């Protein structure tokens, strides 16, 4: 058995806590609380501060992170997170500011938000931006509520359908459902793009919008996007751009120029703000002018040379966050854009695409690439043939990578490719890193054919081996205090 870290609850000793919030006898105040409002029993850990530090430090060492090594997790854009971003986001002027201070007391924050909105408008080719959505899915829901409200205002209540490709990310159909839409899928063609003939057969007057990433989840750019946009616009349906893959085209082409009406971005992917182990992120939404009035409120405006929180949008969908979004994340994205400027952003995408194509080129003789064309910032390989010949699955290959000191690619997505592994290197990796990774992938390929047995038992060098997720789901233990009973 490996030496893992105990639970904080198992380290608890009654009376051993050292941290004090008050040095006076604060407990007397309890007498002012009526008995019928008081809590009787309260079970909670008590651990001295130094032991708390050791506990979480030990836990941190069980994580793999992008500051430790290459993290080619497709569609997640695990690029380097510049450290200056953390420093500026923790300036007291930002993090000690109450969100409800009068507007003349928060001009620095408002100016940052105003300028960031402006930058994003430029980068996206959109006319207005809301910084309020706090994650990609939050942005998607915002965009879809806007689509719903747009048709409602026009009296087109029959427009209830959102079309999306069969390669769409799972949040897309789930977001459409949350906005009260029905989902209709369009098939992909043999180039991995939208099948135009199939699309024509599913578009009708009930379609409210089309939701797509471009490049799509296969990492492929749909060259027919402008034709597709025209087909939807003919029916007064709106085009929604899911910005999960924006790192491919930053500064290279604007979604607004492709014909999109609404865009969300994942600042925690493209704009280098850290993922935090699953958030906080930020999912700003940009729209064309005909939709500006539908954005969540407040937006940031400028009036008499002052920045203001503007609640005056007449068709606003309302609010998607209690305040103005994940402000500290916005600071980091703002700083990143200021440092890179337009050439830096453009070069970032160029190198992201170059890196992805380089790896694909080096691996294509070993791993099958289902769509044989230039990829954008990421690409998908299929282990279907390997599985058939050796019994080694995409999952086994991913786990073997963990043993070699890499994070695994995204597995089993998109759903239209069997045994899929989706690889996204980002622009921040050196050629040496890419070459070493390719070498590791080739070694793993050889192992599939020479030592299949070994492949099934990977990983071995990680803090734990493969987990029993069937047991976890059949008999969920998700609360220590409940498990104890």
């Amino acid at each position, binding site marked *: 058995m490996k030496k893992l870290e105990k639970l904080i609850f198992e380290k608890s000793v009654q009376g051993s806590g050292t941290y004090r919030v008050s040095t006076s006898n604060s407990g007397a105040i309890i007498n002012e609380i009526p008995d019928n409002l008081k809590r009787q029993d309260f079970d909670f850990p008590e651990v001295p501060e130094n032991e708390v530090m050791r506990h979480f430090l030990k836990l941190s060492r069980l994580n793999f992170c992008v500051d430790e090594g290459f993290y080619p997790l497709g569609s997640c854009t695990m690029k380097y997170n510049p450290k200056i971003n953390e420093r500026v986001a923790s300036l007291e002027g930002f993090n000690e500011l109450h969100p409800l201070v009068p507007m003349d007391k928060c001009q620095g924050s408002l100016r940052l938000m105003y300028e960031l909105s402006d930058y994003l408008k430029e980068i996206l080719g959109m006319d207005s931006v809301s910084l309020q959505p706090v994650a990609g899915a939050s942005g998607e829901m915002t965009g879809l509520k806007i689509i719903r409200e747009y048709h409602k205002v026009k009296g087109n209540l029959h427009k209830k359908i959102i079309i999306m490709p069969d390669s769409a990310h799972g949040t897309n159909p789930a977001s459409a459902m949350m906005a009260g839409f029905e989902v209709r899928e369009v098939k992909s063609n043999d180039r991995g793009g939208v099948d135009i003939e199939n699309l024509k057969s599913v578009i009708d007057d009930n379609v409210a919008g089309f939701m797509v990433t471009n490049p799509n989840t296969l990492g492929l750019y749909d060259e027919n996007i402008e034709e597709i946009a025209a087909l939807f616009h003919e029916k007064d349906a709106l085009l929604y751009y899911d910005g999960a893959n924006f790192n491919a085209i930053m500064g290279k082409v604007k979604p607004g120029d492709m014909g999109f009406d609404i865009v969300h971005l994942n600042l925690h992917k493209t704009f280098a703000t850290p993922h935090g182990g699953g958030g906080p992120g930020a999912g700003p939404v940009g729209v064309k002018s005909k939709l500006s009035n539908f954005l969540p409120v407040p937006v940031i405006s400028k009036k008499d040379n002052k920045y203001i929180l503007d609640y005056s949008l007449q068709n606003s969908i309302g609010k998607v966050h209690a305040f103005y979004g994940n402000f500290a994340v916005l600071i980091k994205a703002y700083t990143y854009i200021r440092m890179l400027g337009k050439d830096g952003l453009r070069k970032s995408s160029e190198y992201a695409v170059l890196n992805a194509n380089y790896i694909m080129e080096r691996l294509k003789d070993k791993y099958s690439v289902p769509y044989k064309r230039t990829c954008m910032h990421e690409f998908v390989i299929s282990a279907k043939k390997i599985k058939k010949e050796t019994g080694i699955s995409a999952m086994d290959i991913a786990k073997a990578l963990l043993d070699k000191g890499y994070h695994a690619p995204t597995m*089993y997505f998109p759903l239209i490719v069997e045994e899929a592994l989706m690889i996204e290197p980002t622009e921040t990796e050196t050629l040496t890193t890419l070459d070493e990774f390719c070498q590791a992938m080739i070694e793993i390929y050889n192992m599939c054919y020479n030592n299949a047995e070994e492949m099934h038992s990977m990983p071995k060098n990680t803090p734990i081996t493969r987990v029993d*997720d*069937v047991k976890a*789901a*059949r008999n969920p233990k998700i609360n220590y205090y409940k498990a104890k009973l």
Partner: protein
Amino acid sequence: MADTLLYAKTHEWVKVKGNIATIGISDYAQGELGDIVFVEMPEVDDEFESQNSLGSIESVKTVTEFYAPISGTVVEINEALEDTPENINEDPFGEGWILKLKISDETELEELMGSSDYKFYLKELHEEED
């Protein structure tokens, strides 16, 4: 495969006794799902038309709905599946039964496949995949 059962194209099996139909999913269906971790059931007295969704079956990595092969009213659910959903994997035609319906229209039984037809249907499905 159990020879005396009837099958739907959506891979549910039906065993008829009097006016009660016991329903489960086929061995093929459980194999496709993998380790089943949870079954979401309807409630007793719920009424369903044929091909309505009765509930869903979850494995670790996927979830699928199962459908009423015939119309009817739920008279009993297999409560043991709550604690041991793996019964569906281990004994799909026995301990892994899911629920019992009181049949409302016996003529619908004629729409279902016998075991040899179902075997042929599965074979066709596989040929399509390759």
